[in-house]
């Protein structure tokens, strides 16, 4: 636990030691606002809720989250500091989890800084704040899911660009696996059961369910098990690399 905290603090501090954190947060807030107000037609919709705002989250995360996760392990491999990290008395799970949690908290900070949205919508009307809260929870879990995927893929390479591109592709597949784009491919030949299973992996399905204001335990379990699986895979990848 002490090692986990040490890694967590170092990683989180690492974001703010460079302009990276500030640039990321500014771009994150700017694109969130731009998409919601201009592309989403927020004012034209005449609705005092954040549905439009949340609808853009999966698509923005698709590019912004791999930008956070790509450096998690690839950067350590490139600079060689991974040799230091892995020769310190830190259990592997603590290193994997500490890095992931730091990235997750960082994305949580960026997400929390969208609070002017929430103020705006409360100023303009009387939204259901429970639904908005659920939306934030769902968005945070989804960010965790993307980060876990990105973390694992970052561990496979020393090249951050590769880590980024592969993460975007894998995250994309997880995002859209419930959409016809993917299901049509399987629909022709796979049994309905397989189809349902693939669709159930979709971030969108679970995220949309939560943003409706219903925090179903199954959706939470989905995100937790997804995060856990990818983090375990991340640990396995890091461990396998030790074998040469």
């Amino acid at each position, binding site marked *: 636990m002490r090692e986990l905290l*040490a890694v967590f603090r170092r990683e989180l501090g690492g974001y703010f030691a460079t302009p990276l954190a500030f640039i990321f947060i500014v771009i994150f807030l700017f694109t969130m606002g731009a998409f919601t107000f201009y592309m989403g037609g927020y004012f034209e919709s005449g609705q005092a809720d954040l549905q439009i705002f949340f609808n853009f989250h999966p698509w923005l995360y698709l590019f912004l989250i791999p930008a956070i996760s790509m450096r998690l392990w690839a950067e350590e491999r490139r600079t*060689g500091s991974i*040799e230091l990290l892995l020769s*310190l008395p830190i259990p592997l799970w603590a290193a994997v989890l500490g890095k992931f949690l730091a990235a997750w908290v960082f994305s949580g900070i960026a997400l929390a800084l969208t609070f002017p949205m929430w103020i705006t919508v409360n100023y303009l009307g009387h939204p259901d704040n429970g639904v908005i809260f659920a939306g934030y929870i769902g968005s945070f879990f989804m960010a965790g899911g993307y980060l876990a995927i990105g973390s694992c893929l970052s561990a496979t390479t020393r090249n951050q660009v590769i880590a980024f591109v592969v993460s975007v592709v894998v995250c994309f597949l997880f995002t859209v696996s419930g959409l016809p784009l993917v299901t049509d491919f399987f629909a022709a030949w796979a049994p309905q059961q397989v189809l349902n299973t693939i669709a159930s992996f979709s971030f969108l399905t679970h995220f949309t369910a939560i943003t409706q204001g219903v925090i179903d335990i199954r959706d939470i379990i989905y995100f937790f098990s997804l995060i856990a699986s990818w983090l375990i895979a991340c640990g396995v990848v890091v461990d396998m690399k*030790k074998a040469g």
Partner: protein
Amino acid sequence: MQTANGNNPAAGDAMIAIEGLTKHFGPFTAVDGISFSVSRGEVLGFLGPNGAGKSTTMKMITGFLSPSAGRASVCGHDVVADQLAAQRMLGYLPEGAPAYGDMTPLAFLKFIARVRALKGAAADKAIADAVAATELQGVLEQPIDTLSKGFRRRVGLAQAILHNPPVLIMDEPTDGLDPNQKHEVRKLIARMAADKAIIISTHILEEVDAICTRALIIDRGRVVADGTPAELIARSRYHNAVSLTVGGQVTIAAAEALKALPGISSIEINPRGTETTFTLFPVQQNAISAEVKLIDAVADLAREKDWTVRALYGEPGRLDEVFRKLTRSDTADAPGKNAA
């Protein structure tokens, strides 16, 4: 088993014990059944050409790579089965002294202290001691990325010695340092040597003579020599040879006269500018008295013939010559060194 140390009767106080350690990277064997042990008070110099397996061996001891076969233990803790306990006992300076470049040395050392379970006043003292020992006071608040190579190396050293570990493993600790810094680092290692077991790898042969109590030469993943620096030097063909440099005209007759001295097996002649150096190899290479007698004889001869003697001395031997004789793997086809 490459050396006799596997069954060393004193193995009880061996802080580092390596047995048949092997590492394959695909078809390439980087380390091939190395065995040795290091006791408290020993400074083991790890020598070998690039790609010989020095770094790979160190990476296995420190837990960064897992061995393909064989065993290694640190203070009795197996580095695979009981990895964290072994890692707590050792300080490690990886090759190139990697660190987190966006951190300052102070923040970096605080992170290491936290990981090493040093808290409060104990952590402050450990950091202050390590900073003093490596003379980092002036750069504590600068990002490590902006530091010179020498300072970065010292940050790596400070990190390795922070928790005063019983076992220290340093991969080329003086690489990239200027002569003054090299001297400081060697002094630091010598100061710590008494109550620790230390392994350093180096390309600098003089360093072995300066700080190591024992040297291990490895080549293509195998131990090819293991002994004190003096023992290794004694394997040189120059060991106890006598070198005579004379100025002015050199004649064939002079060489003939030297060759005629008793106890000489062969002679080498190197003309250089206005001088000529003769290297005389004694018949009984390992008898010290023979060398002394030979020097006396050469001195007498020089006086008698009225040569202008510029230098006359007995050679202890040449470590670089022993090194070259024993190793051949510094060729371009030695991959896998940085495979991880």
